[in-house]
């Protein structure tokens, strides 16, 4: 029943695992970024895989799970801090079925599965977002905040608003899968 969301075939690169990455997105340090499959990186998004932990060897900076969407103009930047006098970036891990709305800036440490982040949110450094949580549009989550599972956060600073329904997980899973299937290349003349 939902209408398809079209994109132009020339703009997006589709990988073997079904990831769709816009050519207009800025992907810095792609060797440090993991996409789980069927994940969409929209145009204008900036993913800073180059901000890696100092030291030799290969390091995963940002990992995204399956069926994620990084909205238009999102910035995903690993969190940093000076610990014992040493400045360092820390990896960011995002679970499956996570949607991040357009224009949000994310510097979280961990984002669980089935998390919905609205548009124009600021997710502060080292924020931990547990499974099935939801961040309303225009929320500013201060650094080091912990967002418990199945809770809705809104406002500035982001505060707990209410508990979400027990079936949130099912809804989000259906919605994110549907979104992926609706997201189709436009190749017929309409």
């Amino acid at each position, binding site marked *: *029943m939902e209408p*398809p969301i079209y994109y*132009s075939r020339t703009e997006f690169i589709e990988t073997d695992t079904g990831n769709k990455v816009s050519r207009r997105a800025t992907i810095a340090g792609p060797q440090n970024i993991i996409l789980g499959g069927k994940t969409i990186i929209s145009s204008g998004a900036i993913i800073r895989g180059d901000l890696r932990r100092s030291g030799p060897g290969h390091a995963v900076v940002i990992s995204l799970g399956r069926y994620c969407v990084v909205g238009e103009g999102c910035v995903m930047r690993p969190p940093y801090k000076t610990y014992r006098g040493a400045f360092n970036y820390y990896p960011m891990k995002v679970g499956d079925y996570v949607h991040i709305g357009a224009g949000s800036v994310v510097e979280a440490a961990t984002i669980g599965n089935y998390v919905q982040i609205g548009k124009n949110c600021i997710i502060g450094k080292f924020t931990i977002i547990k499974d099935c949580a939801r961040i309303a549009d225009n929320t500013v989550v201060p650094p080091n*905040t*912990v967002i418990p599972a199945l809770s809705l956060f809104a406002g500035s600073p982001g505060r707990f608003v209410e508990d979400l329904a027990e079936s949130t997980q099912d809804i989000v899973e259906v919605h994110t899968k549907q979104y992926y299937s609706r997201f189709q290349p436009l190749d017929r003349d309409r």
Partner: protein
Amino acid sequence: MAPSVLYHCPCLSTSSIPPPPHLPSSSYSFHPLYTLFFCEECDAVRCNRCVSVEVSGYYCPNCLFEVPSASVRAEKNRCARNCFMCPNCRNTLSVVPSDPPDSGDGRLSAPISTVGEPPFFLYCNHCRWDSSEVGITFEKPTGLAAQLQKLEDSSPDSLEYERLKEHFEPIIRASSLSSSSSAAPSTSHSHHHSNPITAAASAALARDIPGVAKYTPHARSGRHSGKDRSANKDEMPEYKSRLNISNASVYGSGGGDVDVEFMRRLEDVSEVASLEQRWNYSWSTSLETRDLKPLRIPLHSKRSKRCPACTHILIKPEQKAQSVRYKIKLVAANYLPAITVALPHQVEMLGHISAEAAKRSGKAPVEDDKDARDNLQAGKTYPFHMALTNPLYDPIQVRLSVQRVHVAATVTGEGGTIEKARRPPFAISIPTTPFSIAPFAEAWEYEDDEEMFGLDDDELEARLSGREKETKSKSKTVGVLEKRANVTVVGGEVALGKEARGEVKFNMLVAYTYRSDDPAPSEGHDVSPSKKAETKTFAFYTVVDLGNIIPKEKSRVDPYDV
């Protein structure tokens, strides 16, 4: 607003007929499907308003520590570890060390780190409040609540609370001695506890807090009958507070001279603590923002839910606080067919817009003319589609009917007739003959998962071609349009009157019949052990909202339709 379907829960009234949909109060009777529960025992829909809720576990929302229920009371329902709330903005505070050479600006450059120089203090990452402003510092960065314990224990509110406890303790002890004999009858006496579930809850309360069982019903009935009060009088001596409330606060805050003095030299409105900032304190506090103290973070709870009628558990979460799984989860979405409604002309338009956007520049579809697009114009006829999804492992037969005045009249005690006498300005036609929906099978979902992309492409093709043919097969707008997997799409039509305005909302009765002979795969095998090899029918009401009507004379963009 997109068209929506909400489901009726009859818990607010005695009749099973839902209230007319255009009344504002009706919204309390209708819920989205995913918030509803289903009791197999009662064979009925339950909503969050009618289920009885029990706490199954406590946890701190910040450190996620699962607090054993035994210590919840001792810790006054707040986190007793390192979690504090900013008194200014309700954000979580973090512990920061002082900088050895210059403690003044050390906090700005020193981020969270557990090593550093004492004294430590609490710092708000959002509003930059810090606890040294109110003279709270710590020698070590752990066990902050314990370090603050002394301060807390000497505060007037906790002293008053201790006094209250002291006052009631002998009474509680006395009553707990006799409670073994009297608790049970006195709870059942209470006229408030007619429902077995509330009786169970109050019994649990009585078990947890010894005096309550005896005290509560007596005190309640004491207001009504003098006899009970006289019998109770010797047990309940009058409580004298430690402080007189009018001079309880040293700062005033009751509008005394201190407050006047404070107001007189007020320069900035933010110096006055807002009501929200003072709200969480259990004691009257200073009016001044700079006197606000950090608060321990209140605990959250995980809850299990029971059917109000038969007390069967509908929701039972897993013990682990951050787990999102449930041991028992009887949600209506697993029993009732899910209905989504769409207006094809809107869907088409959305598709066009996104296609245009993709062709143009790959930018996001512009959303500003959404309101105009979502509205319906008076005097026109619109087709609409309803997709029904069968969650059961058995095929179901569905019959839809729009609730009308004469439909309601067949059942006694309907309240909607008077309001309904004013006829709605639109006519709905939906297929009235029963149609079938294929059973839900895991295989489809699997297939869906694997080749969703390809599958949906075909489906899209079918839909697109179907839409193009729409003009020539116009007679087929009402009826079953499409069947695939466990989804059946039926079409309906709404004809709007010339003078129509307001919202197109109507109640729809959905009755579905399923076989309950097969106990193994069927979800509802517990429902009817006696009625084997029979069909069962379950009916529920929904309200379908198709959107707003734009009066004909008005322009398409209406400032009131937001």
